[in-house]
């Protein structure tokens, strides 16, 4: 039992990590009319080839996702064999920005995105969970972005 206890994690960014070795796969040319059917065919092809995918994002004409770099060619081949136009962008990294309770920190996701773009990196996808935001960027620019974000650790004034 203590008399004075440090209790909560400070708000804002509390840590930044980098995960290297990822690739972005971009599929284009889906027609709007048969979008659902084609999405299922594409996801089915990836499932049959035993690929687990992350950061799936859809648009009216295609979709993109992230896989480990070592599996990118195989994922592309599976999609091409199923009749899809898939392009692999290798050399991607995931920035993991630790930020507890981001739903309570209105504007924090936007601020993190702004800082990443301002660092010169292009955001290729974003995901979030209760304690972090994950941002996919080019590996060549990830350290600069990480450095900009690390400068904000512990800054309550970030918002």
């Amino acid at each position, binding site marked *: 039992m203590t008399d004075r206890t440090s209790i909560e994690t400070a708000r804002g960014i509390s840590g930044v990590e980098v995960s290297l070795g990822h690739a972005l796969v971009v599929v284009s040319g889906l027609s709007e009319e048969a979008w659902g059917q084609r999405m299922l065919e594409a996801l089915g092809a990836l499932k049959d080839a035993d690929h687990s995918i992350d950061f799936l994002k859809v648009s009216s004409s295609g979709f993109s996702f992230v896989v480990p770099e070592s599996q990118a060619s195989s994922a592309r081949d599976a999609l091409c064999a199923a009749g899809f136009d898939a392009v692999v962008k290798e050399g991607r990294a995931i920035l993991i920005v630790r930020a507890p309770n981001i739903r309570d920190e209105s504007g924090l996701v936007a601020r993190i995105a702004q800082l990443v*773009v301002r660092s010169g990196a292009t955001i290729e996808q974003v995901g979030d969970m*209760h304690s972090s935001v994950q941002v996919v960027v080019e590996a060549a620019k990830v350290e600069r972005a990480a450095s900009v974000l690390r400068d904000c650790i512990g800054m309550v004034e970030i918002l």
Partner: protein
Amino acid sequence: MRIKVMKFGGTSVADQESRMLAARKVAEAVENGFSPVVVVSAIGRAGMPYATDTLLNLLTEVDPLVPPEPREVDLMLCCGEIMSTCVFAQTLKSLGYPASAMTGGQAGIITDETHGNARIVEIQPHDVLKVLEKGRIPVVCGFQGRSLSKDGSSYGEITTLGRGGSDTTASALAAALAAEAVEIYTDVDGVKTADPDFVPDAPTLRQMTYDEVAEIAHQGAKVIHPRAAEIAMKFGIPLFVRSTFSDDPGTEVVPGEGFEHRRATGVTHTGKLVYLEFEAAFGPDKAALESKVYELMADYRINLFMLNVHPHSFGFAVPRKQLPRVKEILDGLVIPLVDGEPRTYIVQVGRAGSPEVAAQEQMLKGLSGFGEIRKCVARLTENCTMVSLIAHEFLQQPGIYYRVFECLLGANINILQTSDSPLSISVLVPENDCGRAVALLHEEFDLASQT
């Protein structure tokens, strides 16, 4: 001394009958050899006379054009919990258990100075301990504390802890008192695999990890606040979510180590979102426009969901209640770019341009120095909701997205966007399909057998 912190939410203290049931839970803990510390929320929920929202309305209704100061909002809101502690302490006394009502400040809850969303920086539990040592039950106001002055020399203002603040109070007190457990009492049996409004037979999860409970709350379930789970996790305190109105054992929240993962835990929904997709012939200007839009969303504290980037567009969802603010900020926004050939973008929110956008365009065309005037249209998809499958480590299995898409598209539910994290997969669907989407995913991932 075997300390247990027991927190009772608004519905558990809403009326004398409920308070008596809650008080009997406390009495039972005493009879079982515990020294309970009770934390209570304000009495009742929105619309009831002493509920937090009712008190807030008393202030805001004075003059809608004069917003109350955050300091006075906190003072006002604290009254709800203060009344509740006094009434609950009196209820315990009526059962023969001596009790002492305490404000958050009296209980030693010290916060930063952020009114309305303060963070607990430390707990000084000596006064709570003194009450316990006297054989009395401390009944502490949830959701509130007192701030330390900037130089740390004195205690300043009454503060409130923001959303889920009473849960946070309970976990924080449990941490400071080295309690054996913290129990969050509510009006449901524990954490359900889905909203019973959509899945009436959704079972109660008997065990889940701190991460899962925090994520399930993050994705919309209103069970326990992630801050409370985070504190319990940090200090290794067993956390339980139970019902005041039954003897069900409820949900035990445990550390992740050694826990059986690779399972789906639940399906949640976060209602009432609007998706904005920004489209333009951006070319190399996309980064500059993205940066400006994100900057403004951050400056005006807009909550972004499902951020999504494509080579020729970017987008995100915002809560519907924030859409008027977003329109106010972005519609007609002029973004001049001066590197190289000057060109200027005007943001238009919605397919049909507002008079504001037309006026800006007209004015800019009449001025020199702005170069080519281009439009960046934010296409709106209204009436959406986000449905999330919470699944720790499960998502690494191939074919999970296929199952989600097959399940929803097969039922003619349109998937407007997706998002994922190591703990969840989320889909944006039309609001009208929310209930069906929750029920279908619940069935697809066999959550009825998941306890």
